[in-house]
């Protein structure tokens, strides 16, 4: 393999793909980056931990096609340390040579025959695809992924449910204390609803890669794998380097979340989202050691917290309220997570009593629902 490219583009590609390298790689060869050059100037950089696969392309002049596995961390450090300008890469006998300016470096390569075939390249099984707006997907992920559990003892809950139907996608995640559900439109999709669970960790990487995400994401579901091609149909596609993120599913049955969402409580509070977030953060400073903030729902919303031996805080803000005044307590972080997930400037908090889950939605926005279990005050 022999190729020439710009250092900045190479660095970007290496940094992207390296995020799939696990610190606790099960196979030594998985600590490597796979660089592959094909005829016609198509070069890809990829890495996988067998669950998450990240691959991206870059523009290069290919003098000799081929494939090489470089030690990921060292290679990344080297490329980063090079000055801007053109970089040449050439692979010889179990070695890779990088030259830039007047410097030449050789590093030992990893055995290419040991490197597994990338899950996103596997050609097994019938699948289907759909397209979704990148910016909308980025928002949806920011709303839902944080609701997933970090407790590995309940694997299914460490993932996000993707409920895919023709023209419609529903994302749902719960750590059993709260539930986030988001509906969004898609183009295409399967004839019958398909449910798969993807690890929250992978979706965190997807959200990160999307950024504020212009363009369209093309998703493919096949076998036990879902892959996302970023920037599909984007005019600037070549520059973005057709990045692909692939993920295996989490096996198991996701809880029936629809049954958990209550239909219409009598008590509904409508309040400025940012004001309530500010107040909960301020008062929440006095809810230490996982203590809750207490909300007294009424036309004058009172938020208070008390930590023994530390102190207490209280603040009142104006709100619209329908129903009986009631007191309900929440983990302040869970509460702000839900409020911040709502996009409209005003949010509606519905509650039955201090024990049943509260429902938080943006005013006039049915696309996102956040269910939050209160903290019982005994």
């Amino acid at each position, binding site marked *: 393999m022999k190729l020439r490219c710009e250092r900045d583009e190479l660095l970007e590609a290496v940094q992207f793909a390296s995020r799939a390298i696990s610190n606790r790689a099960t196979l030594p060869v998985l600590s490597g980056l796979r660089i592959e050059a094909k005829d016609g100037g198509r070069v890809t950089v990829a890495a996988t931990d067998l669950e998450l696969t990240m691959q991206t392309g870059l523009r290069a002049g290919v003098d000799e096609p081929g494939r090489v596995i470089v030690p990921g961390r060292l290679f990344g450090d080297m490329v980063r340390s090079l000055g801007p300008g053109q970089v040449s890469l050439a692979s010889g006998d179990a070695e890779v040579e990088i030259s830039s300016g007047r410097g030449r470096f050789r590093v030992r390569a990893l055995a290419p025959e040991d490197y597994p075939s990338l899950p996103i390249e596997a050609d097994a099984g019938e699948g289907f695809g759909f397209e979704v707006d990148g910016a909308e997907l980025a928002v949806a992920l920011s709303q839902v992924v944080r609701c997933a559990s970090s407790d590995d003892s309940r694997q299914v809950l460490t993932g996000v449910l993707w409920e895919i139907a023709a023209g419609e996608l529903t994302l749902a995640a*719960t750590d*059993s*204390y709260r539930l986030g559900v988001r509906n969004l439109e898609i183009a295409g999709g399967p004839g019958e609803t398909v449910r798969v669970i993807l690890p929250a960790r992978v979706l965190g990487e997807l959200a990160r890669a999307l950024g504020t995400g212009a363009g369209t994401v093309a998703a493919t579901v096949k076998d036990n794998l879902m892959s996302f091609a970023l920037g599909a149909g984007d005019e600037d596609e070549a520059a973005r380097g057709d990045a692909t993120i692939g993920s295996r599913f989490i096996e198991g049955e996701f809880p029936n979340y629809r049954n958990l969402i209550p239909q219409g409580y009598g008590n509904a509070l409508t309040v400025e989202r940012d004001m309530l977030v500010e107040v909960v953060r301020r008062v929440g400073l006095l809810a230490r050691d996982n203590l809750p903030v207490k909300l007294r729902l009424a036309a004058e919303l009172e938020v208070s917290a008390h930590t023994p031996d530390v102190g207490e805080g209280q603040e009142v803000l104006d709100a619209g309220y329908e129903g009986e005044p009631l007191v309900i307590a929440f*983990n302040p972080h869970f509460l702000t997570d839900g409020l911040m997930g709502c996009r409209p400037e005003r949010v509606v908090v519905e509650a039955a009593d201090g*024990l049943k889950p509260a429902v938080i939605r943006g005013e006039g926005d049915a696309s996102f629902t956040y269910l939050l279990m209160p903290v019982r005050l005994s």
Partner: protein
Amino acid sequence: MSVAEPVLHVDMDAFYASVEAIKDPSLRGRPVVVGGLGNRGVVTSASYEARAFGVASAMPIVQARRLCPHAVFLPNDFDAYVAYSRRIRDIFCSFTPVVEPLSLDEAFLDVRGSVRLFGPPEDIGRAIRERVAGLGLRCSVGVAPNRLVAKLASRRAKPDGLVVVRRGDVRRFLDPLPVEELWGVGEQTAAALHRLGLRSVGQLAAASRSLLQRALGDVLGAQLHDLARGIDERPVTPEIEARSVGCEETFETDLDSADDILRELLRLSDRAAARLRAKGLCGRTVTIKVRFSNFRTVTRSITLEREVDGGHEVYDAARILFRRVDPDRPRVRLLGVTVSGLAPGPPRWQGELLGRPAGSRRRAASLAIDAIRTRFGDSAVAPGALLETRGDRI
């Protein structure tokens, strides 16, 4: 104002036995022995009437029965001892905030800040003795320049006395004592000192420091040399709040089946949780301690997602922990269950969307059990698994 002898050591006389005599006045003036009553039990406290027959603390109960067969033998009633200990501590604290309890029945007090209010340290010692006598208990008080001498002075004052060792008299007081009286001198150290010909504290004080350091090591040698000369600069440190709540038990015969071990873990968990609730606390970390018959001792802990104060929750954790220990060869001599990571209770329950057992109902049951036990005694209610062991039938 500088106070030459600011440290008091207050040591209760035959504390547990005396508390028993308050509970049952007919015991007054009789030999009373308190301790574990099983074959492996040891004496935790003996009244002076029993001591006259040679019964002493830490003696196997079997030996005590031989020495003093007509004594009244009673099991430990720690709840009562804790209650009286608290009342005694309240008395100490009414004289000075600087109280360092060593156990239920002894404490150091630093009274240098209290002399303006209450007079010289020996007057405070006398006042404390009167107040303690008002509870129906007796204590001995040592007054001295530091902790070491105060403790030795209270020993000298026993029973029911008060000894003051003035700053200038410290050496005279210490010199004739055998070296074994000093802190840190156990059998081995004593033997090492005897080999050097050092039998009294005075001889130890006169010995060269480097000789002691060669014989005992740098740290211990220097430390003992200081102590022998009456130098002890460790301050009286007020009690820090409880960091853990729990209980442990040594069994009369080793437990050798997993069923028995789990049953005892349940009993201990239940008791530890009841103590938590009684103190108005809850905790997040559960620790078990297991001592096998060969005295190998292991501890395992787990930090739970949330605070608990219920026996079943503590037991659930304890059971998981025991599985991590060594369930193949369970010959267990001692078990302990402790809850730490304490916070003021009651625990707050983060509700869950996906059904798990309703915590609040279990908690209500725990509180009802506490109420019943307060009224009818600890054995009035117990988990079903524990009933059989008491021979009860439903």
